[in-house]
């Protein structure tokens, strides 16, 4: 008797949940609780459709798409309430190169966390997942040109933020990816 879709899905979760959790963490600006919730939402939706998602590509593309879309939806729901602020700490004494590198990395990640979620998703998919602009466009339902412009804007904003840690609360117009 062949294995059923439930077994395959469990195998998929065992094998890929660590990677998908990391993606969720980056999409949520490293909010652990939000990432766990997003992962559950995405996997449950895929679990419901496991019979349909048991083809060659498996459920992963679907789960990634739900993760990205759910992170954007969740941000829309939250954005009324709180603007996130990058708190600039006391610069303190001079630090050695290694410490400075870690501080820069931390600032870059905190800056990434305050980008609008669609820009953040594009950067995460492009530079962490190593997806092409065409693949990201297919996932987000927009053109490769839009992905390129979102990535460009996101990188520009990151450079600004990383260059000035005393950042004001951010107010972004949400860039829709539907054309």
């Amino acid at each position: 008797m062949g294995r059923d879709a439930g077994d395959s899905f469990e195998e998929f979760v065992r094998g890929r949940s660590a990677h998908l959790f990391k993606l969720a963490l980056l999409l949520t600006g490293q909010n652990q609780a939000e990432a766990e919730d997003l992962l559950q939402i995405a996997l449950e939706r895929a679990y419901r459709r496991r019979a349909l998602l048991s083809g060659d590509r498996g459920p992963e593309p679907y789960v990634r798409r739900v993760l990205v879309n759910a992170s954007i939806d969740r941000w829309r729901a939250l954005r009324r309430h709180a603007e996130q602020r990058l708190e600039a700490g006391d610069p303190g004494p001079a630090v050695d190169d290694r410490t400075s590198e870690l501080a820069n990395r931390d600032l870059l990640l905190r800056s990434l966390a305050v980008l609008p979620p669609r820009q953040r998703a594009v950067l995460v998919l492009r530079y962490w997942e190593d997806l092409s602009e065409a693949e990201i466009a297919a996932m987000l339902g927009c053109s490769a040109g839009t992905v390129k412009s979102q990535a460009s804007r996101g990188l520009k904003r990151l450079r600004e933020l990383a260059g000035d840690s005393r950042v004001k609360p951010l107010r972004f117009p949400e860039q829709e990816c539907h054309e």
Partner: protein
Amino acid sequence: MSNFERQLRDAMRSAVADAQPPHSVMESVRRRYRRRNARLVATSAVALVVLVAVLPVASALRGGGGLPAHSHTSSAPLFPGGGRILLDRRGVLEWLYPDGRTVRIARGFDGAKISTGELLAWRSTPHGADYYTMKLDGSQQRLVSPAERGKRFDDIQAQLSPDGSRLAYIRQQVISERKVVYTLWAADLATGQRVDLGPVSWSSLAWRDDTTILAASADNKALLLVNAVTRSRSTYLTVTDPAFTSAYERARPGAAPPASIGSDGWSGSGTLAVWLEGRGPNTDRPAEILVERGRVLAFAPRNSAGLTMKWGPNGVFLLGSHSCDCLFGGDYVTYAGTVSSERLSRVQTILDTWNAAAVSPEGTVIALGYGPAIIDFAPVPSPACDAAGKCLHFQMKQVVGRGTLLAWDRG
């Protein structure tokens, strides 16, 4: 790739290099799936059954005789409304106070509720749930109903009887993805004896008194009164009751008569909440019916395809409405109302549905929980807040990352 892009890539890689998901991801996914599945399966199951028991309860309804009448300090409170909020923080049950203090009371539980002045907490196992009672401070933990080893069930909707002597719960047995069987059980907490009280629907469970349980029939055509001692059952209300069909017709003009019924339990002052739903395309819109001393009121938000109801103090109730029965899209709107106000007031529209809701002990503030991370606080809108004797006005407030909302207690 520029140097800056490489830095960004390296920063992201190092940030999540050691991140690991919770061990129980698959179990959490199954739990979430079962909760949703239970609703869908029950809704489709009722469409297969044509069993109508017409009983003359309208007169009872009209006359009313047949119905029971870490440390955190801040100058501003973390949440409005006072009291204390019960949270589940990854299996740790704790109280959260408005000043941000948290007090841990127990760990290793999958959920808890306040029931008859005690905490009823549970741990899921592959064989059902282990149920514990404890004082509100976590002391005197007692395993009152262990899961039955060697069997594979899920227990849902557990409730303690008003005197705390019995536990009623619905056992869910998944036969296949399309067939789920629900059985009502009661456990005597003094003797540990369990009684099978027969098939019911997943949708309803409420204690009417210390020995009588209100539950919906398996076909969702009637509400039953089931005696936990004698195991006798009698029909209490039916979906074809003229009082209900007429209230439903007022709420959903032009819709076909309601085809299924379930209860959302009694308020503290004895008002019974009943949900009714039609059948078939464009006629399956739900309505919430409140029955109080002979009055039958219908609340039916426009564009609602699904309703979730939650009682609060002072007769305040919350209705969560979803505009479509779909996986993606649709609006989630929360309304508040009371029997005396006879109308609903919109609380908020949000792009997700709450999985928990509570009203502050005074009846002035609403807490809505979204997943394990987010709790929204909104004022109870007018006129529902009039029941509390005062109405608060404040911008919606949010608490993030403190845990899953379970209950709101006076403290």
